[in-house]
């Protein structure tokens, strides 16, 4: 078996990494929860080997067609401003990431999550559970219909409110590409006081903000917001690992 030898010549991609000055740090002092949770030691560089450049295949069987419409749940329509969220998932090389699982979750129109921990006294919506799942198509495109999430208070500091956002979770092809992030809406007045948004280095914050699209806005139905997501891409020149000649 392949795994019991040190292997023949392996052509492994190398996933590039964004410059630290443009990456969200693990901890950010103004976000109080990071104080006891964000590791304090400098992470150790891990060479990218087989485990890091491979990743799970999570197929269509994980996604149902109705998972792409968050506005229709439990036999009725969710309350709120209907929006179409769409975009492409790309590598930093500009290549589409096809057949990739995209998971999203969000608060309802009043800013309330359907979760036991959320005690913000805004009403729950019986027709909104806040969960969506889609697969990207062969060109890396995704889209889902939802309602615009509300802002909500969260106690981090006096009068702290999270700007409206949608949580995204993405798998690319490799462990190295895994990304969990949040999508924001243009021109939110709450950006300035939000440490989770401001933990993103200033030069990269625009990457987390969707853009309004009149073109994709659906007449008499829903506003549209475009958000393209960029995962780490690979060095274009594959390298060869050393071969000790021990081929089974």
């Amino acid at each position, binding site marked *: 078996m392949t795994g019991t030898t040190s292997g023949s010549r392996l052509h492994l991609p190398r996933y590039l990494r964004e410059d630290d000055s443009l990456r969200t740090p693990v901890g950010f002092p103004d976000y109080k929860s*990071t104080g006891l949770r*964000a590791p304090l030691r400098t992470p150790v560089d*891990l060479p990218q080997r087989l485990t890091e450049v491979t990743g799970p295949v999570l197929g269509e069987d994980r996604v149902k067609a109705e998972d792409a*419409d968050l506005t229709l749940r439990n036999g009725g329509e969710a309350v709120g401003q209907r929006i179409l969220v769409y975009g492409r998932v790309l590598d930093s090389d500009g290549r589409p990431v096809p057949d990739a699982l995209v998971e999203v979750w969000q608060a309802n129109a009043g800013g309330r999550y359907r979760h036991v921990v959320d005690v913000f006294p805004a009403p729950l919506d019986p027709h909104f559970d806040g969960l969506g799942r889609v697969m990207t198509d062969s060109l890396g495109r995704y889209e889902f219909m939802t309602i615009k999430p509300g802002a909500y208070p969260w106690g981090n500091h006096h009068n702290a409110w999270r700007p409206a956002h949608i949580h995204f979770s993405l798998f690319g092809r490799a462990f190295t590409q895994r990304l969990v992030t949040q999508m924001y809406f243009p021109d939110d007045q709450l950006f300035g006081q939000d440490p989770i948004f401001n933990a993103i280095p200033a030069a990269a914050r625009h990457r987390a903000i969707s853009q309004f699209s009149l073109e994709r806005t659906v007449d008499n139905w829903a506003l549209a917001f475009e958000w393209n997501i960029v995962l780490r891409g690979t060095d274009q020149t594959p390298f060869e690992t050393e071969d000790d000649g021990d081929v089974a």
Partner: protein
Amino acid sequence: MTTDPLHVPDVSEPYQPLPGRTRHTGFLTGPLRLGTSPSATVGPYLAIGLTWPDGIWAAEEGTEGGVWLRGRVFDGAGDVVPDAMVETWQADPDGGFPSPEDPRGAATYPGFRGFARAQTLTGEFGIFTLKPGRVPDGEGGLQAPHVDVSIFARGILDRVVTRIYFADEADANAEDVVLRGLPEDRRRTLVAERTDDGYRFDVHLQGDQETVFFAV
């Protein structure tokens, strides 16, 4: 008027990055053509979006030779973190990966998915899997059996990555390139101990016993 959310019109022109984006040097080599999307915390409500009925089964329930990987995640005060998510990715017992990205070809070990995710709502996570085999290290040797781990939680703005090694693989661990690069007292934080039904691996986000975390 209604719309079909799965109806995706053709793209009329290729994707163009926003103006003003600059190029940056990558972690290893070469420029990024597009800036990567910034990470964000999963927050306290991850259970809404990331719960899978079959999440904990890296190997199907009842798979012969299956083991439970269990552990807790501790914060800097020594308290258990009850709202974390732990994801694991690993080779099968023969050292193959069920992934088309494996240049040796995607492995198809019976009942093995290789990936699992578990939350820590009960105070600990538990993942059912098969102990991985050894995998080439790309430097002419073999890596010790290991599991790559991502940890997500409120208060952590980017996932933290670590590896699980196995205490009953002392010989393999002794020659593992990654473990050998660590001081002895730090190496210990990556080694899972044998239990009745598998292995235990606790994660310490901070403190004297802070787990070794990796930049990948």
